[in-house]
């Protein structure tokens, strides 16, 4: 398998880069590089190659991290040891046979995916089986495990976030120790384990599954996930501009959207995009689920448009002359409206609605996303928007709504979480605004969480304040159940985990497996 020494890795948004001792691109290939001769052998060749890297790391006392699409903006991927690029592990099996599931389970609704499969690839495969993901993020370029492990969400206030459709995960800890983890109820059969996770220890425990699904690479290498999909559906979406003075009446309670008189009968998705320097035209998007009709993938209409370097230039200018930010943002409003045009109705399947999964550099960017109880959204907005006039912010603000997740450390932890995101160019001004944002919310006594996969100021103290000691301790206990020895716990820890106080070693050193 391809290995590069002293490799400098950069994430897609170019705000995180670090050098690793070894960078492993792991493939579904035999050790000699040839393609395996049958499907199961191909599946297991990828697994064996992951094990080989972990064995080498254990032998050489190095730490291990796995990365997918590199979409995260926080330093959760960072290591100085061995970094595994899992993107080539992209096998997807939509619909499990009756022999592969427990009696009484409808296997056709399940989809097994290797860790590197992108959301886009999974959407494509599910469509061929007349299935769809229950929710996804705004883009589809993330690897499925990367998206789940950081709690990626859409704006589905009736479902939840991406970890909520995961019902099984295959965690590899060492070249010998690996687990198939499900909730309390068994989904897959022993025959399935024999084929796809040979020798794995079965765990059926809600508390372990719920901790492991949002664990940002710290429970071991998640090799595969079992997704529960739903019958294919389409999304009817409507996008309109409203003044903030109107929309502020809805941000704390998306259940009364009917009063906006949009042609959407049963809202499933609601988002608001705000340019804090042009409050007369916020972009409101509402969607509802409707019946599926066959569609062709949309194609773009290539023309001239702003490049990703525009983001870079705005970042530079706003760093040097922060005072120009309100003017720049007013200029950019036309661009924003071109990107988010008004329309009454577009119907497309989820896989064609949430797109842009390319690995082309997006331009240097930063983003913070806070999660607050939706009932507090207007109070927070009334702090945040005025803050942009005192501390210039060269970005936009979006409000999205997500039902409570089952994941132990989900940042969408409230009955309905209002996820407020602040994407912006990489700039000193952006960083200054984020610092002021945390301080303003803390000063106002607003309780909030922070997206694990975006920039944050999480530390060992505020993680416990935000999630409570009981929740944090249960997550650590679950990690110690999977990582049975101090050696394994250290193998999958990094500076991020230490900073947030989640790398606690178990008191009793277990046997070395």
């Amino acid at each position, binding site marked *: 398998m391809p290995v590069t020494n002293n490799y400098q890795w950069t994430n*897609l948004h170019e705000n995180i880069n670090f050098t690793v001792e070894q960078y492993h*691109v792991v*493939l*579904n*290939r035999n050790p000699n590089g040839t393609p395996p*001769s*049958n*499907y*199961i052998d*191909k599946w297991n060749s990828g697994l064996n190659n992951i094990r080989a890297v972990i064995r080498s790391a254990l032998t050489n006392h190095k730490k291990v991290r796995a990365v*997918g*699409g*590199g979409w995260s903006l926080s330093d959760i991927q960072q290591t100085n040891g061995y970094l595994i*690029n899992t*993107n*080539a592990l*992209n*096998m*997807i*099996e939509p619909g499990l046979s009756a022999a592969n599931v427990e009696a009484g389970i409808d296997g056709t609704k399940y989809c097994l995916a290797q860790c*590197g499969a*992108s959301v*886009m*690839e999974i959407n*494509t*495969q599910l469509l061929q089986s007349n299935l769809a993901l229950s929710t996804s993020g705004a883009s589809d*370029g993330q*690897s499925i495990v990367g998206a789940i492990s950081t709690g990626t969400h859409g704006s589905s206030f009736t479902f939840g976030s991406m970890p909520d459709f995961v019902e099984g995960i295959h965690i590899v800890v060492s070249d010998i120790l690996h687990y198939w983890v499900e909730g309390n109820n068994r989904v897959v059969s022993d025959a399935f384990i024999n084929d796809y996770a040979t020798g794995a220890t079965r765990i059926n425990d809600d508390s372990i599954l719920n901790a492991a699904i949002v664990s940002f690479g710290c429970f071991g290498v998640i090799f595969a996930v079992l997704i529960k999909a739903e019958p294919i559906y389409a999304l009817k979406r409507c996008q309109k501009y409203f003044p903030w003075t109107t929309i502020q009446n809805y941000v704390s309670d998306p259940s009364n959207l009917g009063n906006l008189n949009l042609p959407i009968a049963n809202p499933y998705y609601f988002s608001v995009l705000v340019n804090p320097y042009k409050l007369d035209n916020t972009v409101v998007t509402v969607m509802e689920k409707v019946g599926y009709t066959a569609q062709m*993938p949309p194609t773009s209409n290539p023309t001239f448009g702003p*490049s*990703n*370097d525009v983001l*870079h*230039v705005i970042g*530079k*200018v706003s760093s*040097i*002359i922060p005072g120009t930010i309100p003017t720049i943002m007013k200029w950019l409003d036309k661009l924003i409206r071109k990107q988010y045009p008004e329309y009454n109705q577009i119907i497309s399947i989820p896989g064609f609605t949430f*797109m842009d*999964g*390319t*690995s*082309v*550099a997006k331009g240097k960017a930063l983003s913070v996303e806070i999660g607050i109880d939706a009932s507090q959204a207007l109070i927070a907005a009334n702090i945040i928007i005025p803050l942009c006039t005192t501390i210039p912010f060269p970005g936009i603000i979006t409000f999205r709504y997500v039902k409570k997740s089952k994941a132990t450390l989900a940042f969408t932890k409230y009955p309905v979480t209002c996820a407020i995101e602040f994407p912006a160019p990489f700039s000193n001004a952006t960083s200054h605004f984020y610092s002021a944002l945390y301080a303003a919310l803390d000063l106002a006594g607003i309780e909030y969480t922070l997206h694990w996969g975006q920039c944050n100021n999480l530390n060992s103290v505020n993680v416990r304040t935000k999630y409570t000691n009981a929740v944090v301790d249960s997550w650590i206990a679950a990690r110690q159940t999977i990582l049975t020895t101090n050696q394994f716990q250290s193998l999958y820890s990094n500076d991020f985990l230490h900073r947030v106080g989640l790398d606690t070693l178990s008191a009793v050193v277990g046997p070395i497996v």
Partner: protein
Amino acid sequence: MSRNLLFSVICSLFLTACSSTTVIMPRNVAQMHDVQKRTSWSFLWGAIQDKRFENTEFTNCEGNGLSMVSVKTNAAFVLLNVISLGTVMPIRLSFDCAKDAQLTPSDH
């Protein structure tokens, strides 16, 4: 002071300004997210060409071929080109491999 500020802004824009064109395969060709970046050099008005990218191990991509190619130039490259009267012409290449095509258990 304002002159210094203007100078800083212009320098900053000059250093960051780039121009790029990207070719992306259709959605059914998934990208590896392992983007390789190289600078390609041409000399003597293209008489000497950089052939390091022709049918190499890293462009073969395990037999899957490329999924994305991007070419990029910047102000420094353009300046070098002008100063050398076109005899030195660098360009920045980025490319990404395609992943394996999807199989189902019945494909074998």
